[in-house]
């Protein structure tokens, strides 16, 4: 078992009223799963993904990640855990504009304090694998959306995470580009990486092994 959410609640207080963003979420994810989270806009998909990714906290419930109780962890340890095991892919790519493709890929390794030679090798490997060697010195603004997302996925993957979290990774892409990314996810999944993606598309959801449906912050 990779992670487990037990009775997770998340809310915000607004004007004396408590608004629930997540209600009683129970979710168990095994290693090697490929999960798609679906639901209407505003149903809490991104919120859930951020909670799983430890970018956001929650107000009630338990969250265990690889035998660690995330809800009890200190900020520092949580960020170590996160750095070690999780990679994020965003709808709007979120590459660092001032850095080239190569440097963007290198960044997570720098934060993980990977040594120079090893780092270079890993970056070269990734560029190779994603077929973007020719683009390595370009800046994000010089790439198409699909290429940028490719770099985004590569960057999420480079530190060998166990879990990839993708929030509408194909939301800004055309159907052909979407398909490429999905194929890539599928291949990664067969290689053993656990993937949780948020998507609006039935077609994309079909790549996964399981679908979680959300409505008003509740799993249905």
């Amino acid at each position, binding site marked *: 078992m990779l992670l487990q959410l037990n009775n997770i609640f998340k809310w915000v207080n607004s004007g004396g009223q408590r608004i629930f963003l997540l209600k009683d979420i129970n979710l168990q994810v095994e290693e090697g799963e490929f999960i798609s989270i679906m639901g209407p806009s505003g149903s809490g998909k991104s919120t859930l993904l951020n909670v799983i990714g430890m970018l956001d906290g929650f107000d009630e419930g338990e969250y265990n990640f690889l035998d660690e109780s995330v809800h009890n962890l200190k900020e520092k340890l949580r960020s170590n855990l996160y750095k070690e095991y999780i990679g994020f892919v965003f709808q709007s790519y*979120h590459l*660092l504009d*001032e850095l080239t493709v190569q440097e963007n890929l290198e960044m*997570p390794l720098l934060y*993980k304090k990977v040594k120079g030679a090893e780092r270079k090798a890993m970056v070269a490997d990734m560029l190779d694998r994603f077929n973007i060697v020719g683009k390595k010195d370009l800046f994000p603004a010089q790439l198409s959306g699909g290429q940028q997302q490719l770099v985004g996925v590569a*960057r999420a993957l480079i530190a060998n995470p166990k879990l990839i979290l993708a929030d509408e990774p194909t939301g800004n892409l055309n159907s052909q580009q979407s398909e490429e990314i999905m194929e890539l996810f599928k291949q990664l999944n067969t290689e053993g990486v656990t993937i949780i993606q948020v998507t609006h598309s039935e077609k994309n959801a079909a790549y996964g092994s399981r679908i979680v449906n959300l409505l008003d912050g509740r799993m249905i």
Partner: protein
Amino acid sequence: MFKNYLKIAFRNLFKRKGHSFLNIGGLSIGMATTILIGMWVYDELSYNKDFENYNEIAQVMQTQTFNGEIKTESNQPMQLAPVLRNDYGDYFKHVVTSTFTFDMLLTAVENKISYSGFFSEPGVTEMLSLKMLQGTRDGLQDPSSILLSKTAALSLFGTVDAVGETIKVGSASNLLVSGVYEDLPENNSFSNLKFIAPWEFLKKNQDYENRVGWGNNWFQTFVQIQDGVNMSVASAAIKNSKLENLDAESGMAKQKPVIQLHPMAKWHLYSRFENGINTGGTIDRVWLLGIIGVIILLLACINFMNLNTAQSVKRAKEVGIRKTIGSVKYQLIFQFMIESFVVVCIAFTVSLVLVILAQSTFNEVTNKSLSIPWSSYNFWIVSVLFIAITSLISGSYPSFYLSSFKPIKVLKGTFNRKEGVVPLRKVLVVFQFAISTTLIIGTITIYRQMNYVQNRPLGYNKEGMLYVPITTKDILERFETVREEILRSQDIANVAASDVLVTGTFTTNSGFDWKGKDPDFAEEFNTLRATHDFGEMINWEIKEGRGFSREYKSDSLAFVLNETAVAYMGLKNPIGEYVQWGDSGKFKVIGVVKDMVTRSPYSAVKPTIFTLHYGRFLNFINIKVKPNRSPKEALSHIEGIFKKYNPERTFSYTFLDEEYQQYFTGEARMGKLISFFAILAILISCLGIFGLSAFIAEQRFKEIGIRKVLGASVYSIWKLLSKDFLLLVMISCIIAIPVGYYYMNEWIQDFNYRATLSWWIFAAAVFGSLLTTFLTISVQSIKAAIAKPVKSLRTE
């Protein structure tokens, strides 16, 4: 990682050129100012420190009480040094009497040049640790010898190898050069000492032994304390060294002379005495400028903080991404600190260039010769510290602020720029403009006061007046002939000799007695001795009686008093009263003149006595050129006459107007400096709001577009973008007015003759601040307001 940070820092710099330009520009101007002020402060603090005996040398001061007014001065009678030597010898290693430093004509065989120097006792060479290039420090032991500085020796003999040569000092006899010393460095009290002649020689030559007593405070006395002696103990011990030697009933004893030591370490910055106690001096200025330096740097750092936190929306996304790919907060803090460090380093380099460019002007204004001490080890240490501190001040807040962003918030786009930082940014802008406005108030007040004093009615007319110093007896002996010859020219209105100039009647005298004088009244008068035509020449205004006249032989024993003197003496009907002046005789008061400003125009008029004199006290020949006549022709006429009667001396003259202007150089210097800093402060602050307003206009680009599509006018958009800033600046002004009033009121109290702090000074400063703000912001807001709305909407 470090390399990566540097890379990002540089890429960001190049990517946002405008922003970087404002950032580096503002910061480097601030740093350059601080460096200049730092060099100035260092120079002031290191004054006299070159002397080996810096901590042991002191000047002997004398405090006297004149009719309740306590004055402390360095003037001493020549009798004091022997007393200190004989009765208090245990305290001192050296005690020397010296004359004041003055200009003398030195004549070698072929060359003659006027140099400043003094006559002093032999111990002075050891005391000042003179570096002898030729001869020894014993060179003054022989009363017919003289020591020359390297400069003097070089220009008189073309070589430092001058020992054994003879030179004439003034018109006196030949002195043998017994040594040549290295010129004293510029930054000290004796830097203009180009020759040192023996005191014994002067004493004999001038017959001082028989002429001057305890009452003639004509000289200075320096001491070097004995090893292990405490300066203040020695100072307290010699307290009564003069009084003990006076007849208790004499007028001098009534002036209660108190002797004390003024340590060399305090000569320059702590030269003020109040009620006989050493209180302060120009150290106030050092503090003032030092504080201004720090404040200007702070203003520049504030710009940096404001511009960088204003960039937060742009940087927020980067922070969010970095956090999601594994960055921890401290790494981000570190990254932003490095960025500010890079900017500060660049700004520092630019500031050094600015300092080099501004150096000569700054030196001119401050009358110093400062330059960057490239080869000094300490300079580089201080520079590194300076860079580190500036980076810390300017970088820390943006770093902590930016690195604290929550990634999901910024990535989701719900990041709210109104949170937290805006109030602080506003506070900082208010602070900047409060400082700038206060400096403007200061500048206007200083200039107004100077202007006011400069226009003070003097009570006499110095127009067309010039003076030639009398340097030899020859001219004096033939004064009448010289006068007649000068008057032969159509251009000359009048000629008279005097002991002091009408612009500075610094001679004071006591020992007067008159009917009705309180026996305990220890009086002190300014005196001016002159020849007959002096009064008429300066156009004094006679209130009662008459001026000096050649018709009355008895006028050689007559006084003309000013109004203040009449009041001071308590005379009801002054004309015809008699005044006894020591042994000089009984003088009849023949006239009273209206008060004239014959000393510092900043202070009140002193009681002054005018008397006729044709003897050895005369120091200046005053000449009045007729109005509408060319002074040039008059001067060549005068020069010819002086050449004829005094061929040895180079002819030199000074217009009284120039002489008078010297009262203003100090204040003018301060005024220039303060206005210079005020302009810089305003400039830096404006750079800041320029950047901020540019940024805000950019941020609201889309909003402005929408508003315009909805029909907003250019004016309403200008108002939308400008009103916040104008409001902030108004708040600054409200703070600056009382602060400025408080400080300028303190400052102006130092002047007896002073302008009022009118309301318009404050109004003008406020107006100036608002106007500059208005113009600065309008550039940005109008640019935003007239941009095509389609363009702004499309960029999203």
